[in-house]
């Protein structure tokens, strides 16, 4: 089963092999969760959305059409789940789509409330350093639009090319690259210009 492609595992699960699903989750969970964490900025929400995404597949495996890249499909479902979450949260008046709070506080303050910063005064080892860097990256990308953020995270986590991402998002590749450029500019400002 470890030699099977994700597409084969998905097809096997659709035929009733539950062990195929276990292998699928094992292969996708880190990337998919990373994507959702990046999109939402919160581990608990990313966890819920991860569950929601996979349960959609579990309850209706026939929604995944054989012959298509499973990754492209599952990341599309995850993306839609993230946007549904944003819409729900917007009506509940918490974090706006731009990443700042409704009361006007900045996104860095917002990021602090989200628990995404705070270890600047420590002397971290390499692992912690990477974790801090990861948190800073997520905080920086929360300042750009969800559309720009999703292109960045899709490219990093899904393994899809920009052409495939453009097809997934139903956008021209020029638009996708422009969004990636905006997201990267925010990162450049946060990670490199501040050095």
């Amino acid at each position, binding site marked *: 089963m470890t030699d099977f492609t994700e597409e084969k595992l998905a097809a096997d699960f659709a035929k009733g092999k539950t062990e195929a699903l276990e292998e699928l989750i094992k292969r996708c969970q880190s990337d998919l969760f*990373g994507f959702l964490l990046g999109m939402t900025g919160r581990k608990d929400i990313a966890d819920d959305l991860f569950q929601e995404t996979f349960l959609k597949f579990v309850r209706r495996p026939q929604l995944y059409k054989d012959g298509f890249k499973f990754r492209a499909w599952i990341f599309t479902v995850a993306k839609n789940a993230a946007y549904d979450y944003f819409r729900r949260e917007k009506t509940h008046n918490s974090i706006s789509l731009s990443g700042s709070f409704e009361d006007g506080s900045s996104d860095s303050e917002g990021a602090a409330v989200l628990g995404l910063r705070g270890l600047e005064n420590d002397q971290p080892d390499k692992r912690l350093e990477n974790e801090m860097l990861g948190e800073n*990256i997520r905080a920086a990308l929360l300042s750009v639009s969800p559309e720009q953020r999703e292109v960045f995270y899709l490219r990093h986590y899904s393994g899809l090319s920009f*052409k495939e991402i453009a097809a997934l998002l139903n956008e021209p590749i020029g638009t996708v690259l422009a969004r990636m450029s905006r997201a990267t500019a925010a990162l*450049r400002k946060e990670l490199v210009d501040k050095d």
Partner: protein
Amino acid sequence: MNEQNCQFEEKTILCFFGELPDSEIESAKKHISSCGICSKTARALMLADKALLSEKNMPARSTAAFILSQAENSGSTVSTFKKKALAFVFAAVIAIASFAVISGRGRFSAHLDTASVSDVQQLLELSFDSDIYMLEEELSALELSEDILESSF
């Protein structure tokens, strides 16, 4: 090119991710090394790659376990339903077959089960004769009644 962005930034991004056509790679690398903005872009992407891919963020163990339990439940629900449906169909077939047998056998009385064809014929004839006799008796009774009625007027 202004301070904030460079028109070649998208090519820099494509080059970083290995999606630039081979013919353009050399000129892109030359540009990156000479452009302040593009070299910072490449560095930011490198840092992001290193940090995000080394993180290995995972959902909670209970989440994956819950998903798998849902899969098992929906699978066993389907097989239970199939079993019940098969059992229902089987029971219906037995019921229809039994009804067909019973209604077929009901045309003869129980003690005729082992009767031969000639015996059955004799019985039917006797039964017919008996009916005729009874009808004749009734007709006679009616005629008598008629006579009584006529005589009374």
